[in-house]
């Protein structure tokens, strides 16, 4: 077994009052403030206090549901949410170091709009933006747009569902490709302000992206100049070969859901194989493990809290990700063990935002710092910098260097 990596990356996934469906019932929750700027600003400030790499913000084009494919008509869980890109924009000026990664749905939206929105988030945060791309196969959400029929899927595993979801992931890959091309469509230094010739830009440094696919065609260039990071971070959650391929082709960070080290090793191996097949073998591609966490000083207390929350919800909460209930030190052990299987970081989903997020920033982080596997201070000004990713040149920049003095 390989030795533990010296440094882990840590993100938290923010969603409403927390990931447990009964999180909003906890006294520490602020369920009446979920639609206010103050609530989100407080959560992101707490994450930044813990020196985390970034936060992700969940989103969707319909009401939340406990059913994967249909509305559930429940009234006892949090329903309704604000646009994640706009929450990100609202908190960006209030923070200085932490990356901000909203979820965006590729299925019914315009890549041109989304590309400039994330480029602008990168401008307003001076280089801390990213996105988490997501698809939706829900018929109810397609009906909110009314633009195209979506097959009615009743179970995620039937062949029609597999085919339909695979097509949506293909479309998402095209979507990310367009978004990335548009970010590069203005080369660095395109703005010249040359008073002698009266030219504000050097238009030779602006490029049509001319993307065409069965799903859409986009001309470009973007209306928004190249973002500070050049390429903001692209990330995706993946549970199988089809989405692993999207991560391998298109992402800087993939979130995966292994339940033990063996699974983690197998998933990382599959993603690395796909990465090589996509011609990205030499590139830094982070694979983060997702975990739902309930943290207390006494392990029995964490387990009891989970049981109490399940009782309030009326059923045992399960998740795609492993649910961890224990002490911060036990979680640190688990993270180091999973990291040794090839994960370079983790996206933790606080079961109760008001409780488990401070437990991450004030207890887990110091524990990881004592073990020498987490930063003591923010070491970079951009999200790419925090993730060890260099700032890339525009793909459209001429590779040949003009001779000096020419």
């Amino acid at each position, binding site marked *: 077994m390989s030795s533990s990596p010296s440094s882990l990356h840590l993100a938290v996934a923010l969603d409403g009052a927390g990931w447990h469906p009964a999180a909003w019932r906890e*006294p520490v929750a602020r369920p009446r403030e979920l639609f206010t700027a103050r609530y989100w600003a407080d959560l992101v400030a707490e994450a930044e206090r813990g020196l985390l790499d970034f936060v992700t913000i969940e989103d969707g084009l319909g009401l939340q549901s406990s059913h994967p494919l249909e509305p559930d008509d429940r009234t006892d869980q949090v329903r309704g949410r604000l*646009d994640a890109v706009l929450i990100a924009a*609202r908190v960006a*000026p209030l923070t200085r170091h932490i990356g901000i990664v909203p979820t965006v749905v590729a299925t*019914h939206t315009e890549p041109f709009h989304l590309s400039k929105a994330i480029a602008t988030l990168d*401008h307003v945060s001076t280089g801390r933006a990213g996105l988490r791309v997501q698809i939706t196969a829900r018929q109810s959400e397609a009906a909110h747009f009314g633009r195209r029929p979506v097959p009615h899927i009743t179970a995620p595993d039937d062949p029609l569902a597999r085919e339909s979801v695979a097509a949506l992931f293909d479309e998402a890959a095209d979507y990310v490709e367009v978004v990335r091309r548009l970010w590069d469509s203005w080369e660095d230094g395109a703005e010249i302000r040359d*008073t002698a010739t009266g030219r504000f830009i050097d238009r030779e440094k602006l490029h049509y992206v001319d993307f065409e696919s069965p799903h859409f065609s986009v001309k470009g260039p973007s*209306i928004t100049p190249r973002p500070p990071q050049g390429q903001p971070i692209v990330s995706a959650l993946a549970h199988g070969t089809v989405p692993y391929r999207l991560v391998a082709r298109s992402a800087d960070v993939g979130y995966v859901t292994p339940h033990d080290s063996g699974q983690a090793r197998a998933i990382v191996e599959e993603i690395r194989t796909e990465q090589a097949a996509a011609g990205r073998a030499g590139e830094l591609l982070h694979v983060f493990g997702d975990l739902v966490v309930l943290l207390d000083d006494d392990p029995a207390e964490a387990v009891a809290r989970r049981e109490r929350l399940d009782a309030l919800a009326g059923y045992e909460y399960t998740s795609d990700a492993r649910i961890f209930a224990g002490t911060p030190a036990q979680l640190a052990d688990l993270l180091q063990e999973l990291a040794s299987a090839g994960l370079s970081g983790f996206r933790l989903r606080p079961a109760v935002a008001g409780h488990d997020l401070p437990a991450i920033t004030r207890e887990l982080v110091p524990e990881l710092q004592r073990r020498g596997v987490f930063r003591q201070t923010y070491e970079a000004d951009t999200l790419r910098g925090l993730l060890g990713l260099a700032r890339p040149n525009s793909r459209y920049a001429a590779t040949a260097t003009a001779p000096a003095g020419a």
Partner: protein
Amino acid sequence: MSKPLKQIHLAAHFPGVNNTTVWSDPQAGSHIEFSSFVHFAKTAERAKFDFLFLAEGLRLREQGGKIYDLDVVGRPDTFTVLTALAAVTEHLGLTGTINSTFNEPYEVARQFASLDHLSDGRAAWNVVTSWDAFTGENFRRGGFLPQGERYSRAKEFLQTAGELFDSWQGDEILADQRTGAFLRDAKAGAFTHSGQHFDIEGQFNVPRSPQGRPVIFQAGDSEEGREFAASTADAIFSRYATLKEGQEFYTDVKNRLAKYGRHADQLKILPAASFVLGDTDAEAEELAREVRRLQVSGATAIKHLEFVWNRDLSAYDPDGPLPDIDPDPGEHTLARGRAQVRMYRDPVATAREWRERAAANNWSIRELVIETGNRQGFVGSPATVAATINDFVQADASDGFILVPHITPGGLDGFADTVVPLLQERGVFRTEYEGTTLRDRLGLAHPDAGAAGERAAS
């Protein structure tokens, strides 16, 4: 008793991607860095302005098949930058121009409702329509609409968005930790819309925002545009900044309100206006001439002439005489992605008139464009400009102005420091923000979702 003085509404238009904006001035800053937007917004808020206004264009302008490079190029995403500005201001309204052709109602309604929540009730939407295939090339839905359909789509878009905003009444969220009831009703946000352009149904997922609906602006000037505004809008962004034209427009539009059961106060008319201030009127006139020269470089003058001639005139000397050849009468294809080209309805007659004026005054191409193009709206000392603005508003030529500075980001600073205090002394402009929402500041009622719902059902 004399008629009470009208209160003036003022807004700040972030300098745009056209030649009003002087980027060559040594004081001109970035048009994309957030610090410029913060500076501009904070000046507007310090001066107690009603709102900040952002324009939008979804394809870079081209001329002669090449990206137009003489003006400022590049702008942020409207929703993202406005929402970020909500973090650094407390009272200033945030008005975004959003196209109804290249968007879908569910998404735009989510974004405006989110902006309204995240700004505590300061969102406004300038609804514009577009129909050109040129811009449509950037969008998956394409975008070509027959010209006649653009208002019908815009109307239905706005109506549909209104149904989505009203799909939450405001009392659905109980969040009762004791009983475990988060929602009062599982059907919160339910909507069905079936029309010519949109056929959608489901549940809207953003609860009712502080203003209920964003303030709605309309900018079109055609007969259809005026009627659209009179039936639906809360405010008009107009282009009539002379007293007589302003009064005619004002009277025309306000008179259309009654047939929609609306009162004259329910639609604010706010023309765009540029300005140049000096210590004295004479100094301001001198500065205005200099600003005009900076706005019209030799290269800009040639490009401007091409709008009329519809020909490549790059071989002409801007400091020389006007072309002898006549404009190309064919379809205008030279300049794309801008509105000005439609202003010259008879290019041959315009060219003849310009040649005659240039010859009579011994003007070069550049001098002709400087003299015939857009003049500065308000030019004078702070006292003169304050008096002129007040006269316009009291004479019902407008309800206020959307001011367009020519320098980013500091172009509003002088106005804030010198003109605003004079308007406040006259008792025609607020000294403190009133109410909590943009609707409160504009004197507009908050829409009642319940009443709207009943109307829709009846």
